[in-house]
């Protein structure tokens, strides 16, 4: 084994956060991962790339959230018949599905023994790896059916309940396999990938200046977070400066997105606990906010508000006053509804002690964002790794300690009040000036990372520029990758009828995960 000094090349990487990039060999790929784990770093994302056209190699990348920076490991392997890299699932359990996804798209495999398809069900042949450069983006294949080997639980009285992919509600598709005794859940295994739309391949047909539109549609409930992450990556790659006023307006949009989702979830959680009143009142407040979005930002959902170099529209002179009045009434309404939820014995009975995710499990599995914070882990990039404008505004990571549905409800309520405070601060400190700046052309082959703390947790976009202003590779990552496995733990020992409630309390993204 050679020393790190000889084997590792380190350089800084363009990003909205402090970021370093390390090129490592196979041995150091694992050694570094072990070291990062020992230092309590979190795995942010894993992605691969086909660079055979450039240097005859495939590459795999892993980004980690370290104490004061992001560390990106890069490992290149020769394009033989079976390009392989060492798995680090033993250090970061969340890597398992990401490694399977890298294989499905690129045909480079990790040494982990689980080779079941994750994003590939049977919609394209096993021999086709769609993200390879020689794979035709437009080619379509007849869908086949292939069995999926769920892990079987055996024993007296154990039976399975398959759920999905089409769910009994207005929600996204996914497949859940419960192994139960009576009503009690012994095991839950999720199978995802149903909404895999080939977004990464689609990115490669777009120019750098139109990628943000697709990014905003990776997960519709996190449009502002993804669009911002994309723009942050592009702006870092081109060293473009976003005007301060636009930076503040982006944050305002991000906080509105957080509040809207929390309001929606709080209503749905009340409903799942048998308290329809909660749904009626919280969804009314959400609608009020969406209508304010429509009049202030020009859209109910902010799909096209954040654009490279700034934002698409400015606030009207009367908007801040209107927003402040709205925030005040929303705050009062939410406070009153919080009192009703907290004093409702039936609701609290369903919420408390249900779907508990202990801090130890959350830590072990590398939980991110809201789910981590509800189990007492203060993971919030706005507080721990703030990017403009958050250093100026100042954000504290809010946590709840119980890790149950009640904690995730309480955290959402806490965060609504906190976000309303942030919105007011953003308006108070809103700088005058331009809302948009030009983006210089990018040198091809620049790899940049954009990371934004969305309402679920950190979303990441890794963007590599191509020639003639095109996108060479764009990888999008949703925190749901890390957090879906948490659900499989939180449900253990609970009863099947509590699953919808527990699932909603996490409210993870299918589309963001499936890509």
């Amino acid at each position: 084994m050679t020393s790190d000094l000889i084997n590792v090349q380190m350089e800084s990487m363009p990003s909205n956060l402090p970021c370093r990039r390390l090129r490592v060999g196979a041995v150091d790929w694992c050694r570094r991962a072990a070291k990062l784990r020992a230092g309590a770093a979190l795995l942010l994302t894993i992605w691969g790339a086909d660079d055979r056209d450039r240097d005859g190699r495939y590459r795999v990348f892993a980004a980690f959230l370290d104490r004061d920076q992001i560390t990106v490991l890069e490992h290149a392997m020769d394009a033989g018949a079976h390009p392989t890299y060492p798995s680090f699932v033993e250090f970061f359990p969340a890597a398992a599905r990401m490694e399977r996804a890298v294989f499905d798209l690129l045909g480079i495999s990790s040494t982990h023994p689980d080779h079941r398809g994750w994003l590939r069900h049977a919609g394209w042949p096993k021999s086709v790896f769609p993200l390879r450069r020689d794979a035709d983006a437009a080619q379509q294949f007849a869908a086949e059916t292939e069995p999926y080997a769920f892990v079987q639980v055996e024993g007296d009285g154990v039976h399975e309940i398959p759920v999905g992919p089409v769910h009994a509600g207005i929600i996204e598709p996914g497949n859940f396999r419960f192994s139960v005794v009576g009503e009690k859940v012994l095991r839950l295994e999720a199978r995802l990938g149903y909404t895999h739309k080939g977004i990464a391949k689609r990115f490669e047909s777009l120019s750098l200046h139109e990628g943000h539109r697709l990014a905003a549609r990776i997960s519709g409930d996190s449009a502002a977070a993804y669009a911002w992450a994309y723009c942050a990556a592009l702006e870092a790659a081109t060293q473009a400066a976003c005007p301060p006023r636009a930076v503040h307006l982006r944050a305002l949009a991000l906080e509105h997105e957080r509040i809207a989702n929390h309001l929606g979830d709080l209503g749905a959680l009340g409903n799942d606990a048998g308290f329809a009143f909660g749904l009626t009142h919280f969804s009314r407040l959400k609608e009020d906010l969406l209508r304010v979005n429509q009049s202030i930002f020009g859209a109910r959902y902010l799909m096209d508000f954040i654009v490279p170099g700034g934002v698409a529209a400015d606030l009207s002179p009367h908007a801040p006053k209107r927003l402040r009045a709205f925030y005040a009434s929303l705050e009062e309404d939410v406070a009153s509804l919080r009192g009703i939820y907290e004093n409702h014995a039936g609701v609290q009975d369903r919420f408390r002690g249900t779907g508990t995710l202990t801090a130890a499990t959350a830590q072990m599995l590398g939980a991110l964002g809201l789910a981590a914070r509800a189990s007492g882990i203060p993971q919030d990039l706005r507080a721990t790794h703030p990017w403009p404008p958050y250093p100026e505004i100042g954000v504290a990571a809010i946590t709840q300690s119980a890790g149950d549905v009640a904690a995730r409800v309480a955290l959402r309520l806490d965060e609504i009040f906190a976000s309303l405070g942030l919105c007011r601060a953003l308006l108070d400190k809103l700088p005058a000036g331009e809302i948009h700046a030009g983006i210089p052309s990018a040198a091809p082959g620049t790899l940049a990372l954009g990371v934004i703390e969305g309402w679920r947790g950190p979303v990441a976009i890794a963007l590599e520029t191509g020639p003639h202003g095109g996108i060479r590779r764009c990888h999008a990552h949703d925190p749901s990758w890390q957090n879906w496995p948490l659900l499989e733990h939180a449900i253990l020992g609970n009863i099947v009828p509590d699953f919808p409630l527990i699932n909603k309390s996490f409210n993870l993204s299918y589309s963001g995960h499936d890509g």
Partner: protein
Amino acid sequence: MIQTLKRILRTGILTETPQPTAPAESSAAQAQEKILKIMGRALCIRQVDAGSCNGCELEIQALNNAYYNSEGAGIKFVASPRHADMLLVTGPVTVNMEEALKRTLEAVPHPRLVVAVGDCGACGGAFGKNYASRGAVADVIPVDGAVQGCPPSPQAILDAIRSVVSSAATERSSRKEGDALPASSCDSVQTRG
């Protein structure tokens, strides 16, 4: 309890009188009357996410809020396709959802209607067609109508549901089920922004 009741009284009734966003041949109220006349009961809808980004789902969920109050207007979302008169499908249809979508449609009893929701469901939207995406819903199952938008507003979705029911009632006798949408209906999406 007293707080809950106070809140209900203070909030009052928020449901709005439907105002169609697009000029329809009849007003929304008339369309609604037509639905009741044809169905004799609520129109039951099963929503299927065949691969959407979840944006359309959020706007469809909004139909149930107090402002749009779709259930109060005789449009009800059901959990099983066997209870449904209409499928409301968002897209693009992914290859991984193709089979599930077809099987859901098979489970819906005749006569039945299918409405594609959103730019993606109507035309493939930002994702288009590729190895993983079949594009528009109409490319996978027969569709009776579509509403564009990214995502379309709840009011636009409501208008589309009503207009599909009312035109199906007048046309069904003379029209084969599931005639494809006119090809030109997607042009506006492809050329937009």
